[in-house]
């Protein structure tokens, strides 16, 4: 069976900034894989390349065997991408936004209804879905967008900091939903976070990213054992030589 994501020696250069420096990692189908690292480590850049938004300067990325550069259109059919700082259309209501987005993927009316209703439930917004999104709080907007990324049950969901801006309870709720989708619908999740504690509970495997390079990779539990640390933060501090 082909890998969900296979990144090999990915380099991305912006002017004179090396955002990614020979990055390689593998995501297996139906797992939750976390890219973690400090600000500016290159997480967003890596996820954008996987999502066909950016072209790698060199190296290759395959999503379920499809090349993100050569077969970008095919890749877009099986993924969804949640940008780190996304917005919804201000003049549309939450419902209208979900319907608008669902129309790109739904094959028929009944599938469209299924998607929107499922998404509505994920958001937990209830009646507020009828309001224009410009009146939503940051967290409400985030939940709407997470819901939209999951409702189509993509083969791969690329989520850039899915819980950013959410309070503890809503972050917990979103994590549970992500887990549920992976279990029930076989969705593969590639996410990023700089909250290493959250990732420990959520991810099957993680890659620690620093300055555009993977510095450690594996199951959170194994990593903690290997580096003899109490949590991933400590692991990270050890591998980058701070501790």
């Amino acid at each position, binding site marked *: 069976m082909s890998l969900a994501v296979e990144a090999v020696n990915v380099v991305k250069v912006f002017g004179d900034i090396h955002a990614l420096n020979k990055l390689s990692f593998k995501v297996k189908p139906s797992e939750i894989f976390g890219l973690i690292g400090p600000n500016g480590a290159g997480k967003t850049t890596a996820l954008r390349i996987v*999502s066909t*938004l950016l072209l790698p300067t060199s190296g290759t990325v395959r999503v379920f065997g499809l090349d993100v550069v050569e077969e970008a*259109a095919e890749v*877009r059919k099986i993924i969804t991408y*949640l940008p780190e*700082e996304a917005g919804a259309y201000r003049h549309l209501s939450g419902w209208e936004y979900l319907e608008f987005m669902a129309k790109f993927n739904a094959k028929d009316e009944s599938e469209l209804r299924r998607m929107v209703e499922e998404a509505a439930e994920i958001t937990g917004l209830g009646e507020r879905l009828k309001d224009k999104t410009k009146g939503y709080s940051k967290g409400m907007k985030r939940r709407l967008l997470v819901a*939209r990324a999951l409702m189509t049950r993509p083969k791969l969901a690329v989520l850039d900091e899915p819980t950013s801006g959410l309070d503890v309870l809503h972050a917990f709720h979103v994590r549970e939903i992500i887990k549920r989708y992976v279990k029930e619908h076989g969705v593969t999740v590639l996410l990023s976070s700089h909250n290493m504690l959250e990732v420990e509970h959520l991810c099957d495997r993680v890659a620690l990213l620093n300055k555009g390079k993977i510095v450690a990779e594996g199951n959170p539990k194994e990593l903690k054992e290997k580096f003899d640390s109490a949590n991933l933060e400590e692991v990270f501090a050890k591998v980058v030589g701070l501790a």
Partner: protein
Amino acid sequence: MLKGFFNILIKELKELVRDPKILLGMIIVPLIIFPVLGGIMSYSVQTAQEQAQKATVLVIDNDGGKWSQEFVNLLNSTAKVYVEKNVTSLTDEVVQQLLSHYNTTQIIEIPKGFSENVTQHLNVNSTITATLKFYGVFTGSGIFEGIGASLIDNLVHQFNRIQAPDIVLTEKSSIIKGEIKQGVDPASLSGLMMSQSIALPITIMILLQVAMQIAATSVAMEKEEKTLETLLTLPMDRFAILMGKLSGSIIVAAVGALAFMIGYNYMLFSFTMQIPAEISVDLASLGLVPSLFGYLLLGISLFVTLISALALAVIISAFAEDVRGAQSLVGYIYPVIFIPALALMYLDISSLPFALQMVFYAIPYSHPIIASKAVIMGDYWTAIFGIVYVAVFTIVLMYAASRLFATEKILTAKLKFKGLRRRRKKTEEEF
């Protein structure tokens, strides 16, 4: 309170200075437009004067007397004169033949009895006057239209000063699309045409400007509101995104163009002039409004030009990070729209020096204005050529826009003003 005011003022100025696109747009645009326009004007006036000196006049001498000879001699000192004798019936056909035979655009007819009347005036009765007839071909060439007519006015004035005041009067007529319109002075006609041809370029200018702002905003909004990234990862052809966005603006533009045509038509038909006080003539009855086909061509010309402006605006806005940036970038296109529009208000493209003509023809935004004059004069080929040119230009732009949407450039492209902005120093803390 004052402290807060100054604090905000200083912050505003700082932001403006650090985003030179906006400031440059504000300063460069007027700084370019007016000197360039002034240059075009004076250059054109010079050219027109040179052309006027080379102008030819056909004199039809039906009088053949002493005084008509005198008048022709006077005329000879200022213009190149051809003389034809005894053409009594000046029908439309005869006039056309003469004009093309002598390759001229102005005819002075000295009617039979001219010398007799002058002699009578001088010797017998000073209430008797002699009349000259002037026929000028109306070419729609803007402020230079009146030159021929004023030439004859000067001559008659000179003649009268030498001989006797009010001895010779002039009757001026225009030849419009091959038809003689008796009593219609070409100079006042061109004044009338100009007063309406000022409104037209202004409206086209505003329409183009508004349409470009709409299109630029629609793409920049997606960037500013951070919805573009999501859109670009959806399972659809990116060309569809581009076309969807463009079509939205095109619909707005089409409605704009339609409203424009209706308003323009209304305006044309409401223009009348009084020549002399008792007869009133309107442009429609002189045949100086476009035919239905002409309107159609003008509408199409306006529409394709709008689309090309929209496509350009979309491309430009891809280089901006937000709405404000997109609008100021689009502002850099304005001189290209404004200069031809303003220049063509007063000047006909044919009266411009050749090199400038080429520049104006190359700018797509001048074509609806050129077409508007051309269709009035029944010159449909100019309008059609313009439409084809602008359409090709638009297709090239659309291709470029679709290329831009197909790559990551739509997300990462940025216009850098190197040197103006201090290069961001790469600091280690960033990592």
